């Protein structure tokens, strides 16, 4: 396989896989956002709520390159062949995770625009989204071979 650093396939595929690098950004940002939002609700500290909002915002933005590199890896490594099993589960859960992260950001964004308190049920959505993100990441780690030798 080519190792040309300017070859898009080299960038996207597993020997220099951007997807498995970039995925850590939305996971970490979203998890931190949920934690900040939970603490903001408990302590009523405005700064934590602000931190949560911006974590969700950047997490939502960072899902876009992750989704793009994941789809490109599918096209290049597997030539877009029909997915099944763990690969299909990972793709479906990744799409749901992306939508959930954007939904959480939208709930926060709407509350800020309307200058009204955020609904308490948002935490349930955030925890559900976190669980789906975790499951997606688990399958992704499994597929990437992180559990394998070497």
């Amino acid at each position: 396989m080519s190792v040309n650093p300017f070859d898009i396939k080299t960038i996207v595929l597993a020997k220099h896989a951007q997807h498995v690098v970039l995925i850590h950004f939305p996971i970490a940002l979203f998890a931190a956002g949920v934690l900040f939002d939970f603490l903001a609700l408990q302590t009523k500290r405005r700064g934590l709520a602000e931190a949560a909002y911006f974590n969700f915002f950047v997490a939502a933005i960072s899902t876009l390159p992750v989704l793009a590199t994941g789809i490109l890896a599918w096209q290049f490594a597997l030539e877009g062949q029909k997915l099944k099993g763990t690969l299909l589960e990972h793709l479906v859960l990744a799409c749901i995770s992306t939508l959930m992260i954007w939904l959480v950001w939208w709930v926060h964004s709407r509350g800020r625009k309307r200058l009204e308190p955020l609904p308490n049920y948002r935490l349930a959505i955030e925890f559900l989204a976190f669980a789906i993100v975790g499951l997606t990441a688990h399958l992704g780690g499994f597929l990437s071979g992180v559990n394998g030798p070497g």
Partner: protein
Amino acid sequence: MIRKTVLIVGLLATVMVLTLLLSAGSPGSSAKTPQPATAEVKVDNFSFGPATLTVPVGTTVTWTNRDDIPHTIVSTDKVFKSKVLDTDEKFSFTFAKAGTYPYFCSIHPKMTGSVVVQ
């Protein structure tokens, strides 16, 4: 008496010749149609076993995914390429020409192997 003996010997000889002809022409005869050679490669724990397989020309190599996650078998020189193999799924390719055929898993490119055809 002599005539009867000649008849029996002739009959026996005919039966023997026919038996020989039939057994030589039967589809199961190993002398006429040798069985095609086969070889197996196991895909397990993110590796190919054996990593290097040496086979004669005409051998059909079958890869079986014994791992819990999907893998592919892709020739570096684009000679052969499998679909995504889930657990216990197989992929076979017959090597008609001598040479060395390196291959890898396109999902996990660190997984490499080769088939040496002699």
